[in-house]
């Protein structure tokens, strides 16, 4: 019994010590050199397109749901996710809220308490707007051998509103590779990005199809 207790304490100390070493709290107003370069590089891209795989785990279901598609992020227009599987629809997140287009037609989705500030959070994460995120989260960073990782731990009020434990943004080679949401009560969302490309300008047709 004592041995088990010792193991538990040791493990806890070890994990805590490891955490303390790996995650560094960042001040968006005064970023150290590697982070300022990473953030500046991301912010320089006005429009980006990529493929995505979204894995949604919910305690309601015993198996996670998987979705695939491609996205366009534009600092001006917002985020457009075109789902090809397992559903077929376009979801636009912008300053005005969310629009879903599907074969049934287009509809505005009211931003309710349940959805909280999630659309806005998505836009801030894709824009890597650390100043805005800092108002609701503690920003922590971790430099890895082959990339970087940012963790956003919500302040108490945000945690309650959004029901989020933390959000992790991972990147490498100048691109964001994965966005992960760990929500309360075992609900998780992972969006893995691939085939990134910078889009120089959005054509009118693309604007009309993919944005509001």
């Amino acid at each position, binding site marked *: 019994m004592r041995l088990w207790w010792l193991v538990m304490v040791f493990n806890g100390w070890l994990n805590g010590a490891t955490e303390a070493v790996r995650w560094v709290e960042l001040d968006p107003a005064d970023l150290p050199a590697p982070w300022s370069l990473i953030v500046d590089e991301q912010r320089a891209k006005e429009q980006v397109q990529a493929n995505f795989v*979204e894995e*949604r785990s*919910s*305690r*309601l*279901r*015993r*198996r996670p*749901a998987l*979705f695939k598609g491609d996205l366009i992020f534009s600092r001006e227009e917002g985020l457009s*996710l075109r*789902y090809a599987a*397992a*559903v077929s*629809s376009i*979801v636009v997140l912008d300053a005005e809220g*969310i629009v*879903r287009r*599907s074969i049934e037609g287009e*509809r505005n*989705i*009211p931003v*309710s*308490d*349940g*959805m*909280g500030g*999630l659309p806005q959070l998505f836009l801030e994460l894709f824009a890597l707007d650390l100043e805005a995120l800092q108002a609701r989260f503690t920003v922590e960073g971790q430099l890895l051998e082959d990339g970087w990782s940012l963790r956003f731990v919500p302040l108490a009020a945000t945690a309650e509103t*959004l*029901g989020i434990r933390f959000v992790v943004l991972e990147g490498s080679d100048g691109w964001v590779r994965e966005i992960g949401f760990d929500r309360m*009560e075992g*609900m998780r*969302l992972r969006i893995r990005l691939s085939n990134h490309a910078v889009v120089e300008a959005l054509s009118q047709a693309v604007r009309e199809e993919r944005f509001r």
Partner: protein
Amino acid sequence: MERIRFSPGPRARNGLLVMLVVLAAFRLATVPWHEVLISSVVELLPKAAGGEGAVAEAMREAQAGLVFFGGKEGALPPEVAQSLRAHLADLPGVKNAGVGFGPPSADALGRVLLEHRLALMFPTWLAEAQARYASLRPGLDFPEWLAEDAVGRLDAFLDAPDSLGLETLIETDPLLLLPSAFEAFEMPGADEGDAPDARVWLQLADDPLKTEVQEVMLPAILERVQAEEAAVEGLRIVWFGALRFAAESRAEMQREVSGLNVLTLLFVGLLATLVLRRPWQLMHLIVPVVVGLLGGLAVLTLVFERLHLLSLVLGSILAGVAIDFGVHLFFHSAERGSDRTVVRALLVSGLSTIIGYAVWASSSFILARQAGVFVATGLAFALIAVLLYTPFRKPAAPRFETLLRKELLPFGRLARYGLGSIAVVTIGVLGLKLKWDDRLEMLDIPHPELDEAVRMIAAQGAGGMDNRLVYAVGSSYIEAAEGIRKMDSRAIGLASFIPAPKAIEAVQAFAPQGEAFLGAWRRALEKKAFNRALFAGFEVPLLAYLGGDPEASITRAGTALTKVFEGPSSILIGSVDGMHWLGAMRSGLEGSEEPLPRGVFRLGVREELEDLIRTWRMEQVRLSILGMGVIGVIVFSFFPVRSSLLVLCLPLGSVGMTLSVLSWLMDGLNLFHLAGALLGFCVTLDYVVFYDHCRRAKEPFPASIRFSALTTMAAFGVLLLSQVEGVRSLGATVALGVLISILGLELMRPPPSKRGDV
């Protein structure tokens, strides 16, 4: 048998008169005028009791108690709006205060809808599922099929990206009643603007049309507004409400009534000085006017609980006629001595006028009813005063200067017939163009500053200011919602949450299958790999709902909804005396003449009032014709046929010509023109009766008629300075009518060569 005659002496006459005045004055001194006098046009709407009328009344009262606030230079900053709301809500006498005129937020509404989702949405959900089942014919029992269909929809919903964040809701509402209802719902009058609605409202606890409420609340609100303005540099707040409109209308009308009265006195005094030899004796004429006004007002306060200021303005008719009673008797006595036939003429003229106005008392228009009682009883008092007041029988009365004895129209017979024919043709030609004006503005006092505040505040948001909402009333919310659906299927607003009767029937039929459905539901969840245990909390409320009364649960849900629809949006749902109402927007109603379905009506006070004005006007035409008919009968029963025709011909011609000319000059004739026309008829009748009396007695043309016409024209001409269009209309009609009458009388006189008088 000796005939007993009532012939009191001068002392007894004066004593009786004093007694009348004392009684009337005593009554008036005990009247709580602050509570009795009203000035708002809204109060002209007939009070209806019970049923739909009670609902209309409740909605109107709720809206009348609102006061609205906005920024003078654009919308209020949100923090100022919140601060102002908090400070106003603290005021004693304020029931509630809020920010934003639109319906409640999606979250506030969503909370109520979630709590009452089964009552409100399950019936429709079930009825739609039954329809799908009937068309698909799936070969399964309905509960089995329904469970699989519902779980399949839940699965698809969770696959949709926008389900993100709704997991907790879905545990409570796995049938997705709420998301489906929100998808179909369009909030009536919702603010579609980008900026949040920062307009502030407060709801008063008491009737804002009461003077004592205005006297307490107006300074208190103003103080809070000024404190808010002082706290933020450059901030200017505009505000309005029935409270302010009523108070300013009352003040303006009181100013106007006193101003116009002073002007009338000045004009009449000036005229008297010009045309009378002993003008100070004219003071005696005030006696019947004062007795008439006191008596009429005393009776009016006994008959009606609340008096509209405009009906008192219409009471100026009373002064206009009452003074003529004195003029004829006074000057006739002065010039020819006491004469019983003059008293007879006076009685005929006076009684016919009284009866003519008494007909108004049967009107459904409160203004006409009050004016009718006021004028008829006041004239009765004035007539008694004229007969009792001894100086009117003394020859020491004032005499006319020669100015009033001169020939006015020194034309020959041919010219007179020519002018008469022109008059008849004018009536005929212009009369064909007779049109009516039933706009509300004729009753209202303009308030440019407040109107500007209304415009500014309305421009600062989209919701809550539209008075073109349509309502359905029913004995339940279900019936009210049916009424809305029958009106328009495009925008049914809040009614979309209330199930149709057929959906309620579907629930009642389904209730015994509840357990079977839940069993199938659990199996379907298992099949689709859902964590079934998480949905267990949904089963108990569903069984409880299916075991209860679905209609009663809708009433409870409706009551809960009324609690979140506050302030300006409270008009969208409510109940009173067992009647329930729902509001919805309806397009294409403007200018529509089609009758609304039963149980559906417009709240717009303007439209309702204009409809009423139109009805009242038509009624007023009938009543005026009836009144003139009664007068005609009286005239025929007192005078020979030839005299009766003469006596009635000129007043009728004068009224016809006046209305024809005014209809041609103005945009149309209104209620007040009609009121003035009857007065013109009575005044002219009075002149003709006295003229006829003198003609038959071979006496000279009575100068008192010219004097009376001059004073009447002066008194009613002054009304042209009024700010109220209706009062101006009354003044114009009477002044023009009297002018036409006096010219007509002059034309009716034989040429100087054929008569002995001057």
